[in-house]
């Protein structure tokens, strides 16, 4: 048994898992506050990464400025998307809502391929050193940065929902829309804001992953990987999303290890989360932390 490789893979899993957790958190945020399942979450990452690339490489901006502009763009993008496409969908059956976000997903995926090309692009080097030595292992600087940023975003979410006024309004809306509205909370603003925040944070995640792996349409796969994570954690639990993301990240890399060392099937790491997903849905459909629906006639 190759412990060094296993340890390296588990560390990778933890880092990738926190990123999954961040994206899953964005997904849950939208689901919790607007009851919309966003199949286009992966495309948010894609758009964020490509827009930042356009600012940095094609307009030659310094990193901090391009990054800032990308954040602004993603925020506006989220608001506009909610207002134009998702607002007419309020009150429609779930199949329509799902299909609209799926439609958005293929639209944006094709659009980014058309505009930016189907090949992988890389950001200009941000860090001086490519990798650092930590506990006897080589770790890429970008990985450490992504881990730190993920933790930072999670802390930010915690603060936002616990202490800020808008965060409280969003929690109130998620709890009961009518009550929230009668207390003077603008549900429209809350809906728009949750899409804006989700797009913004996903965009950041996209940039981070783009720095590590390069920007290409493969980024949108993360949007699919989010489903095992959120189902595992519970569809309406933010803590569950983070836990689920980390577990899926670890699981993927463990599957890679088992596959590479013993089974030699190939490709197991990308399919293992979906087997887990089916099993969870069969035995515990509401996940680890999700609330169980009780239906009445």
């Amino acid at each position, binding site marked *: 048994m190759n412990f060094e490789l296993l340890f390296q893979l588990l560390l990778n899993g933890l880092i990738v898992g926190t990123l999954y957790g961040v994206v899953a958190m964005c997904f849950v945020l939208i689901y919790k506050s607007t009851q919309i*399942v966003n199949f286009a979450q992966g495309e948010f990452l894609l758009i964020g990464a490509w827009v930042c690339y356009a600012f940095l490489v094609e307009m030659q901006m310094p990193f901090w400025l391009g990054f800032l502009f990308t954040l602004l763009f993603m925020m506006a993008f989220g608001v506009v998307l909610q207002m134009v*496409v998702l607002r*007419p*969908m309020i009150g*429609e059956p*779930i*199949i*329509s809502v*799902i*299909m*609209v976000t*799926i*439609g*958005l*997903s*293929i*639209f*944006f*995926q*094709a*659009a980014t*391929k*058309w505009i930016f090309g189907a090949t992988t692009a890389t950001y200009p080097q941000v860090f001086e050193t490519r990798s650092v030595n930590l506990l006897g292992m080589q770790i890429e600087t970008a990985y450490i940065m992504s881990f730190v940023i993920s933790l930072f975003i999670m802390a930010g979410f915690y603060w936002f929902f616990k202490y800020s006024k808008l965060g409280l309004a969003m929690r109130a809306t998620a709890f009961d829309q009518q009550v929230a509205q009668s207390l003077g909370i603008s549900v429209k603003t809350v809906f728009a804001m949750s899409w804006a925040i989700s797009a913004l944070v996903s965009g950041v995640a996209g940039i981070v992953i783009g720095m590590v792996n390069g920007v290409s349409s493969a980024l949108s796969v993360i949007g*699919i990987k989010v*489903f*095992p994570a959120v*189902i595992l954690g519970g*569809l309406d639990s933010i803590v569950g999303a983070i836990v689920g993301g980390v577990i899926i990240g670890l699981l993927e890399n463990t599957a890679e290890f088992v596959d590479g060392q013993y089974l030699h*099937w190939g*490709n197991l790491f*990308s*399919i293992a989360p*979906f*087997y887990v*997903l*089916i099993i969870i*849905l*069969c035995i515990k*459909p509401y996940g680890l932390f999700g609330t169980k629906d009780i*239906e009445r*006639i």
Partner: protein
Amino acid sequence: MAGFSLRPCGDFRTTYRQDTRIFDTTYIRNAAILGIFAVAMIPFVLDGYYVNLFIQISYFAIAALGLNILVGFTGQISLGHAAFFGFGAFASAWINNTTGIPVLLSIPLAGLMTAAVGMLFGLPAARIKGLYLAIATLAAQFILEDFFARAEWFTGGSYGAAANPINVFGYEIYDDFSFFYVALFFLVVMYLLGTNLMRTRDGRAFVAVRDHYLSAEIMGINLTKYRLMSFAISSFYAGVGGAMYGHYLGFVSAEGFTILLSIQFLGMIIIGGLGSVKGTLMGTVFMVLLPEVMESGVSALSIFEWASSTAVTDGLAYIKEMAIGLAIILFLIFEPDGLAHRWQQIRAYWKLYPFSY
């Protein structure tokens, strides 16, 4: 779903038999039969391009009808229909290649095999519904895609599988002209079966499960049984459609059955109209013709400089994909009941013209 009848005032139905007729009036029935004959004339009148388009429409329409039975009539969402379509294609080729059963028989057998697989992946549907089911079927899509790439004994792995042409009583069907009639035959049979299914007890049970599953259960409808049955029937249709696809192309490769095709199937039934057999056909026609129309549209616009630039000609594949996404979004926002509903409205408009009271 949202359809209203165009019968004149005072024309009441007095028996249950009258109420469940497939065609509302004799005129509509005769028109439909004439329509089939008119379609059968296509290969004599139009050239091969249109015959090919019709064959495409027919195998997609069969699979899409299966999806509509599942989604539109039973209210279960499936994002993995393309995987079942693909499974049918491989299964038929495999049955024919290994056992030598004639193709015409192996197509329904492949449908049955696919139905079994569909029931396997429908098992979670016994407990979950709506969004959770959508995600479970999404997982089924990826698992089956992975299976296609892996199971070399069944699919030929990355090389793909060869599928023999259809053989009817010693007469081998290898060109579009004769395949057209096989496709038409299957299309009519499968659509008649689908329409009749909705008039039976089981079909009504599906609709009851869709409309309010708790009430349906209280009325004595076995939810698990009907949900599984719906998955089985839906997969059967997908399998038959897929098998036809395989034998038409003569070759099945694992790359064709991605999530994008699943989404296209869903797009067909949404654009056509959920819960409408006629709408399914309309939606399929729309979805198959959309890229073709766009392609000819772009070449017609090439007199302008911007349309003949490399950005447009190289990106045509992406533009087509964007159009599919956009069509789904626009239909959901502006015409959620689909083309079938729009068709009803147009008919009502002309029937009542000029006094649309």
